[in-house]
């Protein structure tokens, strides 16, 4: 967590006019703590009901299989922290996957293809940022248009599923580092964790990051405080687009193909992960680590249902919906109590 404000210090000087409550967990962390509790509860339930559940292999797989979602959720966190939303990420994932597959099938090497694939996301993010900031189109509509655009381009680039046989990608997909008992990590997992680390540092140790929070707190105040609101707002969509581009690459590595229909509804998974991770959709409050926990919760639901075996796949959706419900109601109750 940040060096900032985990708990209020016990030795804070008695202060004029302030109502400092001591020895209490900062309310900002309560939603994330809720996520942690849910995560632990799920691990406990899974561990007590199924053998081989609490093993390194299973846990590692939850992260590895969702590494692309982690990256996307990180990008989404930036946007949501400013009070915006990005509906285009699922389509961008598909597009960058299609572009990757197309480039590899046309003989481009990984050194050229990989940067370009990520750049696809960056460019779409930039376009969204310009629509939102310069033309004052609501983020919901601007990213919706970007979603249609990216999906449309997908069909142009790759009308049918294209397999990826590029040696670099194949080796990236096959590489496993780790111990014998299955506690392994893949390059995708490493990339996802690196993205999380970079995002964390950016959000908590740079002016840009703090401006993101300030805009979410009050855009009007941020403007009057002389902060670069315009630049920051465009940049969060660029970041989200770039993350989606990278996520698309990771998904292409995972599925070793590019297909126009991948990532349908993935933006909702990302938003759900961010919300379950304790970030407020109104902006200004939340943590990127929370979003990672949110992704893990979603992954664990899948895993538990797989372990159960008798439960049909649609229960996943119902569980995610129920969890979402519990979280938003709890957040709401917290907000009411704070007032």
């Amino acid at each position, binding site marked *: 967590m940040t060096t900032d404000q985990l708990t*209020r210090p016990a030795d804070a000087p008695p202060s004029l006019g302030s109502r400092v409550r001591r020895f209490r967990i900062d309310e900002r962390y309560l939603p994330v703590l809720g996520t942690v509790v849910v995560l632990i509860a799920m691990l406990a339930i899974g561990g007590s009901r199924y053998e081989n559940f609490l093993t390194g292999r299973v846990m590692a797989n939850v992260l590895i299989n969702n590494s692309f979602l982690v990256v996307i959720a990180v990008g989404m966190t930036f946007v949501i922290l400013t009070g915006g939303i990005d509906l285009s990420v699922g389509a961008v994932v598909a597009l960058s996957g299609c572009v990757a597959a197309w480039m590899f099938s046309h003989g481009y090497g990984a050194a050229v293809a990989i940067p370009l694939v990520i750049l696809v996301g960056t460019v779409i993010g930039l376009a969204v940022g310009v629509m939102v900031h310069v033309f004052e189109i609501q983020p919901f509509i601007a990213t919706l248009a970007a979603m249609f655009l990216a999906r449309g381009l997908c069909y142009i680039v790759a009308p049918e599923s294209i397999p990826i046989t590029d040696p670099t990608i194949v080796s990236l997909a096959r590489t496993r580092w780790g111990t014998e008992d299955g506690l392994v990590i893949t390059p995708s997992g490493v990339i996802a964790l690196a993205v999380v680390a970079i995002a964390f540092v950016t959000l908590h140790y740079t002016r840009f990051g703090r401006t993101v929070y300030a805009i979410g707190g009050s855009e009007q105040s941020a403007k009057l405080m002389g902060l670069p609101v315009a630049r920051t707002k465009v940049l969060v969509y660029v970041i989200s687009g770039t993350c989606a581009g990278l996520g698309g690459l990771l998904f292409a590595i995972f599925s070793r193909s590019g297909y126009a229909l991948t990532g349908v509804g993935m933006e909702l998974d990302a938003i759900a992960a961010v919300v379950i991770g304790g970030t407020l959709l109104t902006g200004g409050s939340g943590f990127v680590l929370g979003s990672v926990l949110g992704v893990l919760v979603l992954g664990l639901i899948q895993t538990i249902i797989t372990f159960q075996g008798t439960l049909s796949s649609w229960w996943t959706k119902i569980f995610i919906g129920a969890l979402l419900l519990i979280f938003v109601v709890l957040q709401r109750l917290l907000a009411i109590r704070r007032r």
Partner: protein
Amino acid sequence: MTDDTAVTAPDATPIVAMTGISITFPGVKALDGVDFRLFPGEVHALMGENGAGKSTLIKALTGVYSIDSGRIVIDGQDRTFTGPAQAQAAGISTVYQEVNLCDNLSVAENIMLGHEVRRAGAVDWRRTRAAARKHLRTMNLDIDPKSSLSSHSLAVQQLVAISRAMVVDARVLILDEPTSSLDADEVGRLFDVVRALRDRGVAILFVSHFLDQVYAISDRMTVLRNGALVGEYRTAELPRVELVQKMIGRALEVLEQLEEAPKRSVAERADTQPYLQAIGLGRKGSIEPFDLDVYSGEVVGLAGLLGSGRTELARLLYGADHADQGEIRVEGTPTKMRTPRTALSRSIVYSSESRKTEGIVGDLTVRENIVLGLQADRGWLRRISKRKSDEVVNRYVEALGIRPANPEAIAGNLSGGNQQKVLLARWLATAPKLLLLDEPTRGIDVGAKAEIQRLVADLAAQGMAVVFISAELEEVLRLSHRIAVLRDRRLVAQITNSDDVTTDDVVHLIASGGQS
């Protein structure tokens, strides 16, 4: 138009010199060739009624608005800023009336945001907080920089905002109504800080409605009226009466006449039973339990400083907030005020102090705004006929003198005074028996103010019960039959008004908290 008493420069050259500034908004000349000078090491008050152009002038200086014509010279250089960020870079910082900080962040961040101490590109939180603490000390503010801004009182937040303004080494500090939510002690502390800054050579532009404060702190003042410059004066050489005349632009006698007219009726109270009775009514964190009776035909004034609980009291009576203890009796019958609708069904209405956010429905027309209360009462199924609505709307547009007299005008475009009249029309159309008026005359011009005061007096004379809230004690004193005094969210005293009661008496009651 400039007065002959204009002063010459105290010393040296002005740090800010604005000449011939004009700004036009659609249909309004907001500023018309205004000149303004600000010198280092002075506290300069910008005076004028609401709508005189004070905030427009400030926003022209800080680059929020672009000017149509005129020159802005900062420290000898021609400048035009395109936003607050540029103005700040040039050493001009502004602290606004509503605290413009982010309450989801810590105190340290709010002070240092954009100016954090960095090492190798990353924010060094330890040193950033140390710097914040240093700035807080210069304000004599000993609070933990790590604490969240929202955990502090408004007064502290205001001082934090000033700390932030000083981080950039401001040479010009603009304080726009910084004291409107502070109590006397807090104002004193703020003024200590302001004087210390002035002595360090900072030029301070001070805007306030409180004349006492202006005379206590300012060295010179510039008076604006209707977007035009009236003159520039030394505070010590301009008596209050003259200042008020210059701000209002009328001779004092006319003013007195205007203000004298509406006065409480002297009718004896006939009822033995109060229309509304609050017994031990209270809400935690909002207002302590209080008892209050309001009789028909009587105006009960609520006196107290901003934040003393005046609004909170009225909201409990209206059911806008839930009381968590005590009870309300309407005409002797215990009534649970669950929502405003309950109050409405008992002919109790409330006009909020925040016209824009809690009163007017901006994008709807004047007609729709006026009949909204009636319509809400009838429910959505029974739409008020065009004929009925014409009748109601025309009656009140005429009776209250709503301008423009066009029922189809969009209410959000009307001036503050006319919006207030639209709100009054909305409520009067429902034929209420108890009218709760929260700051109905705030921010509207003198003429409209007198009209509203007269209306209140007339309504009471016709038998309506009125609870009248105003920050202006003179007004409360003139209109009320009884005055309830509030302080620190408690009802501390109730007095029967008479011609012998003076504002000083009420001020004394507020100051002493009712214990004399």
